[in-house]
């Protein structure tokens, strides 16, 4: 392990791969923002339909607009300083967010049997959502200083793993299996992105293989187990746990090629879909817009992630690269797991679809993530 001192302030501009690229396309760095706006617009449009159902979701799209407003404010704030500020504040951000999680455990608001929210005034915040970003910032900062030629070995991973597992454990207690899992997946992605020693990788895979059944038997709540069982065989209890999965698959499939039309989704509007405005928002969209709409949405997400990757690629700064990559992997796993779950490929875990699902904390976290990427794209040549 070698330690290097890093100066984030470049002495001169540097254009490694595409000379004249920035000059010819000055708008290119705003592509992630543009795609974010498009996706948010689709999200609100879709939510208008999903929350026209006469149940608890009725009219909630208005709240989503407020959340987006807050997200815009956060974006503006994040764009002001140089991203190196995040490097300086990384540990403080991490510690602060852990503090918020402690507050949740102590005084959190219990909804649907889970304790995930802290509320002040009329607003409630889900610190576990923000923790995803905090962990990524923490890891980017941590790994920036570390270089292990030939890949990480177990002893190199001990410390960062500990710092990842602290919030993961706190989130599992809430319980919020989805968020805890996302943090683990993001951590794994960031490690693989850098490089893990092949032997270590083999050991880790073996340990994971043995640990899975133990975790299943001891670490999961009955309803979480039930979800896994019903994922493997949804028809085992079509009215119970498998019900959501089946209804969701029916919703997606019944959209066929071109969909049933905007606000004409029967599965959602007749209340067959549970949580149709949050975790299952994609089933509302796919029911109404069909295969054509879904592929379109998928392409937008792929463009969004690619544009983010190009920002990371061109940042020429290990911290920025790891930070951007980490944020993108949050988005990637959210999209993949949420869609996979809605389409019955993955067990049901509470993971929202970025920009589409209803939920203030999720929207705020996503917009902050995009803001950091925009900051990286724009602040390369500052100072």
């Amino acid at each position, binding site marked *: 392990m070698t330690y*290097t001192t*890093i*100066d984030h302030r*470049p*002495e001169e501009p*540097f254009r*490694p791969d595409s000379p004249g690229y920035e000059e010819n396309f000055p708008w290119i760095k705003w592509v992630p923002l543009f795609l974010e706006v498009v996706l948010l617009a689709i999200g609100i449009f879709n939510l208008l339909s999903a929350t026209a159902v006469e149940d*608890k979701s009725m009219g909630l799209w208005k709240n989503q607009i407020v959340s987006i407003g807050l997200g815009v404010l956060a974006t503006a704030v994040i764009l002001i300083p140089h991203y190196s500020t995040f490097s300086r504040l990384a540990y403080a951000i991490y510690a602060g967010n852990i503090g918020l999680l402690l507050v949740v455990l102590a005084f959190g608001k219990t*909804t*649907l*049997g889970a304790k995930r929210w802290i509320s002040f005034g009329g607003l409630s915040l889900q610190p576990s959502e923000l923790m995803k970003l905090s962990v990524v910032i923490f890891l980017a900062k941590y790994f*920036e200083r570390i*270089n292990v030629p030939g890949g990480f070995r177990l002893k190199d991973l001990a410390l960062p793993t500990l710092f990842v597992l602290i919030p993961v454990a706190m989130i599992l207690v809430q319980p919020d299996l989805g968020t805890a899992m996302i943090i683990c997946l993001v951590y794994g992605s960031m490690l693989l*992105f*850098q490089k893990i020693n092949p032997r270590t990788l083999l050991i880790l895979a073996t340990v994971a293989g043995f640990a899975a059944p133990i975790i299943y038997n001891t670490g999961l709540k009955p309803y979480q187990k039930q979800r896994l069982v019903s994922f493997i065989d949804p028809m085992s209890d079509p*009215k*119970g746990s498998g*019900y959501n999965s089946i*209804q969701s*698959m*029916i919703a*997606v*499939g*019944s959209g*066929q*090629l071109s969909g049933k039309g905007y*606000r004409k989704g*029967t*599965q959602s*509007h*007749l*209340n*067959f*879909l549970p949580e149709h405005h949050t975790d299952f928002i994609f089933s509302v969209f*796919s029911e109404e817009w069909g*295969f054509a709409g*879904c*592929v379109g949405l*998928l392409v937008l*997400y*792929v463009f969004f*992630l690619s544009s983010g*990757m190009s920002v*990371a*690629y061109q940042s*020429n*700064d*290990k*911290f*920025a*690269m790891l930070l951007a*990559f980490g944020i993108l992997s949050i988005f*990637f796993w959210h*999209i*993949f797991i949420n*869609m*996979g779950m809605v*389409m*019955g*490929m993955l067990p049901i875990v509470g993971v929202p679809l970025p920009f589409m699902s209803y939920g203030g904390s999720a929207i705020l976290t996503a917009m902050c993530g995009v803001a950091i990427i925009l900051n990286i794209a724009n602040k390369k040549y500052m100072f």
Partner: protein
Amino acid sequence: MAFIGNEEQTRELQDRFKYATLALILGAVILASRLAYLQIFNGEQMRQYAEENRIKKVKIPSPRGMLLDRFRRPVVDNRPAFDVIVTPQYLKESGRASEVLNRVAALLKVPVADLEKRLEKSKGQASFLPVSLKENLTRDEVAELETWKLELPGVSVEMAIQRTNLHGDVASHVLGYIGQVSPQELTKLNQGVARKYSLDDVVGKSGLEKEFEPVLRGVDGSELVEVDALGRSIQKRETSGRVLVQNREVPSIPGKNLILSLDQDLQDAAVRGFGDKTGGLIAIDPRNGEVLAMISRPSFDPTQFSRGIDNDLWQKLIADEKKPLRDKAIQDHYMPGSTFKVITAIAGLEEGVIDENTTVNCTGSINLGNRVVHCHKKEGHGPVNVVKALTKSCDVFFYRLAQKLKSVNDIAKWASHMGFGTRTGIELAREAPGLVPTEEWKQKRFGVPWGPGETLSVAIGQSFMLATTIQLANAYAALVNGGTLYRPHLLRAVESADGQILREFPPQILEKTSLQKKTVDLITQGLWGVVNDPGGTAHTQAIKGMEFAGKTGTVQVIQIRAEKIFAKCATLPYRNRHHGVFVGYAPIKNPSIVLAVVAEHACSGSMGAGPIAREVIKTYLQKYYPDLYSDSAIADRIKADQKAKNAPNSAPTPREVEE
């Protein structure tokens, strides 16, 4: 320095972006494939599932036919019942479950712990399935809950149809109860039935509800309604802008009503008469076999069964030593005791071994070989003929009569003619056949020949002789109508729900025996004396100005010295006390009601069973013969009698003639 930080490390990382891009593309391809699989390859089927999801065929339950008494007054009806239900999912989502439960508990004035227990019990089922918190709300409770509806998320009042026995536990054994079809009986039930039953259907489980199930059951209708995933039917949405389903409704056809021969007023009188005594009563019209009253005590309320039997209640009913679930009028047989002397008298008179002039001097006992057989009256009745013997229930007369008969088979022959030993064939299941012993029967059953002393016992309705309450009533009915044995029946007619008579049931004759007029006259004279002669065994039950006749019987449950029968009974343990039996009829001329009462362990026929019969007969006469037996008519007659008595050359009253 061109790169920020370590150039080499950053370059290395840039290299790895190709793997990240690959992972991104792979993820997108997986998702797109799944989309194609669901939406393109299975889209058609999924669309169909979605359609079926929305439109549900909902059963419109048909009202079950009513049971009406002979005056077409409803006895069993379908009444709306209101339950308060809660959907746990909505309660949970509201976030103030305990507050709501407390509120409901306060409105219904029940402890909140009860409601929590109900909710706890439903933990296993899906949370969107409603749970009942309390059944059969009063109108006030319904109003209270509806008023605070908005403050009680997840709580609602639901209407259900409750099969209701309007008179509670009266005649439950006859009317029967209904219940949900059980999985075990489903296959049996659906054999040879055009309209199949399903598990959520109700079916008659006992009594007339069971016997006339095909008549009472209606034809369920159906309706296509739009429902949400929770199965709640929903209003057609304005926003959907199209009619999703034509409201194709198949109306239900209600079941047919049964018009019974029972008279609810007599039923109520019988229950009044019984009080808390145990036993059965049956009243028959001797002119056609119609059953006017039929009860068994103690009883149960079928209404409590109709929406699922509470297990505690069921266990209590089964464990009760007085067997409230048994119909004591037809399912239990007893030794008929002295009430059977009528049959012995018929045998003697018809076989010609005695006539009205045959007199026996009762000294209180007779010698039979080296045994002494006692009369129930130790000091004896003195010289008695058949009329007096019946009136005073003299055992010795019937012992002598038995000795004059060729064998017990003579008694058996006439007992069989009068309907003993075979089921009467009333429209109810599990009727007991009773037993008429013969010499052959005993040889076959026990392998021992008939002993001469046993004939004496049979002559006074003891030993092997067994009869049901309904057989006793029917036999006396056949006696007073001159020998016609009708099949007792409960059903007069079947009518459609709108009151059209569909079918009537004429009387059915089981056997026509020609009894000599002299036989009937002598025996009925004796039976008149039982109640109205000061020396009659049931004279205590006589009603001033209202004459009826009958015969008492006191049946020993355990062997006990004859003279101790009356003295000791009340001090015996309940299970060892004698049964009281009374069979009677009214009016004296052209009888139109015959009734038999068995009061278990009531010690005596006259004091145990007599008052019950008296109550029913009094009610009957006052209702059916108001000209003769209304209170004012009786008062007038008594006044006239008094006047006539005081006047010289007055016409003798029947009693004086008798004496």
